[in-house]
């Protein structure tokens, strides 16, 4: 940083402390707004993030390849062939791909000796699945299936409804690929409390090759789940895959494309805190404007003198803008730090009594987790910066229209 810029920064920094009380009040208002905005959003987003995280790691994956018709019509007829060639092609498509896992998924009837329930049957490779999630930890009874094993693991909800337990036999009845009859008996080797509520109610999990055989779909899968090395690489990886798989009748989706309803629900829920945040910022914006208004008007003479002695209006405006940035940055940083500290202290909010029971009955943990998503922090900085830019219009106009003599006589 040059000597001149250092001096301008020093000038701006000292100027904001010419009236300590006023600056402290303005900064406090920004701190308060930023803190409240972050906490409101964090509380609202926390639960959704847990849901989304579970859906992504236990169900959709960050990126998923499907037959191009499967999203519209989720039928085994719209499965696609998965062989070594495709596996290599996908793995070589982008160096940011960390691991992949093939899956087959279909709707079937699950039955015991007396009753029948609808279920979603997943054929998975247990070794590859372990790279995506810690599903084994959710086993409450028994063990996970192995490849080539004629067995199944069922979700707790389904087990309860069918009154099945480990070592019992599960009957699956349905339709395989291209209308082939699909039915079989499977020993239940494990029961798990699936973290995704819907899957806990009706999930059946078995080895991929076992499921493919059951569904007359040898070598076919309905989805190839892909994990990039880092979450932020999701879109880039999807884009590479889309290019490389062009012409193969395959479609590549990112998780937001596969979970639009959940995201919409979250956005709707966030509308209220966003509106409150907007109102809060409007109020803070006027407070900020008041400070800048006073800071500008009480220094008109000084500005006139600076222009007289040879300071260009642009440099003068720059110093004023730096002053506003200092106030904004201080407010935002302290506000973010305070919000983060409060979130760390209260995370998670543990529900008790009837509220807790109501949440448990809905299939969720009785806690309200806080979100620590980076964007809800830096967005507040962006909002305050935008307010500062808007407020800056006033001193900018004043400086651009400043009559040196009138100002110097002020």
């Amino acid at each position, binding site marked *: 940083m040059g*000597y001149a810029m250092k001096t301008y920064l020093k*000038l701006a920094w000292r100027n904001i402390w010419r009236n300590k009380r006023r600056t402290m009040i303005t900064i406090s208002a920004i701190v308060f707004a930023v803190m409240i905005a972050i906490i409101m959003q964090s509380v609202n987003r926390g639960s959704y993030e847990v849901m989304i995280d579970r859906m992504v790691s236990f169900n959709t994956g960050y990126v998923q390849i499907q037959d191009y018709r499967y999203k519209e019509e989720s039928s085994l007829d719209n499965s696609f062939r998965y062989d070594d060639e495709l596996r290599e092609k996908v793995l070589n498509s982008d160096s940011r791909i960390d691991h992949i896992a093939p899956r087959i998924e279909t709707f079937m009837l699950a039955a015991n000796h007396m009753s029948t329930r609808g279920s979603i049957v997943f054929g998975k490779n247990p070794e590859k699945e372990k790279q995506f999630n810690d599903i084994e930890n959710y086993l409450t009874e028994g063990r996970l299936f192995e490849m080539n094993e004629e067995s199944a693991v069922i979700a707790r909800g389904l087990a309860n409804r069918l009154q099945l337990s480990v070592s019992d036999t599960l009957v699956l009845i349905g339709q395989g690929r291209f209308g082939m009859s699909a039915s079989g008996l499977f020993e239940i080797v494990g029961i798990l409390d699936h973290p995704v509520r819907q899957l806990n109610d009706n999930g059946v999990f078995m080895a991929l090759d076992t499921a493919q055989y059951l569904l007359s779909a040898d070598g076919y899968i309905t989805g190839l789940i892909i994990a990039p090395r880092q979450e932020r690489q999701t879109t880039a990886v999807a884009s590479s895959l889309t290019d490389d798989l062009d012409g193969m009748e395959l479609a590549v989706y990112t998780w937001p494309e596969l979970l639009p309803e959940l995201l919409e629900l979250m956005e709707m829920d966030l509308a209220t805190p966003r509106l409150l945040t907007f109102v809060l910022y409007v109020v803070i914006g006027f407070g900020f404007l008041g400070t800048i208004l006073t800071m500008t008007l009480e220094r008109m003479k000084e500005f006139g003198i600076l222009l*007289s*002695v040879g300071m260009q*209006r642009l440099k003068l405006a720059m110093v004023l803008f730096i002053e506003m940035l200092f106030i904004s940055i201080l407010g935002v940083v302290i506000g973010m730090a305070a919000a983060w500290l409060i979130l760390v202290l209260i995370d998670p909010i543990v529900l008790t009594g009837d509220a807790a029971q109501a949440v448990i009955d809905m299939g969720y943990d009785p806690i309200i987790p806080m979100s620590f998503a980076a964007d809800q922090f830096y967005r507040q900085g962006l909002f305050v910066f935008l307010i500062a830019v808007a407020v800056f219009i006033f001193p900018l106009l004043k400086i651009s229209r400043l009559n040196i003599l009138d100002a110097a006589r002020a």
Partner: protein
Amino acid sequence: MAIVQTKNLSKVYNPDTVPVHALRDVSISIEKGEFTSIVGPSGSGKTTLLNMLGGLDKPSSGSVWVNGKEITSMKESDLIDFRLYNIGFVFQHYNLIPVFTAHENVSFIMLLQNRSKKEIKERADELLEEVGLGDRKNARPVEMSGGQQQRVAVARALASEPKFILADEPTANLDSTSAMNLLDIMSRMNREQNVTFVFSTHDQRVIDRARRVITMVDGAIHKDEYQNVEETKTG
């Protein structure tokens, strides 16, 4: 060559309503090294003339030439730069930057001229020594007396190495000792470094020290005379 020159300079305020003739056809020429006082009663046009010389105000007619360049037709941004390199200002109320120390106030003008850090520091030190404030360089304006602040203002005006210095009533807010002290400094700089000073003043002490006295009445030059000055050191 004249350092500063005006040709038929006139200024009329409110020309469309109640015209006030602040300057009437003023033509003067100030040579390098002059120590000039512009005197006259209130409303005689001293400050208006000074503002015109400094390029702070535009005339209704006529022109101002500084170091051979006509400044009356310059664009404002060019004029600001021109002032920065050619004209030094000393104001009645000192007008230092309150959050800067004496040293920083003097340095700031040179910084606007994009001089090197080393050069700025050395020259600011040197100028503060010259005005007798070498030991107060880290004091802020609020920590200094009026006389000290005005001496910093003189050092600031000199820092940019201007062609001439305009001083508007520089002693008006100073006690007698401080005023004489300031005049000593300015006289010495004029004498030793050939710095050109132009004052507007009511102060007889300043008038007595000026080698040229321009008297204005009703916006016109009434008298323009040179006088012998006995150099005395006071304070």
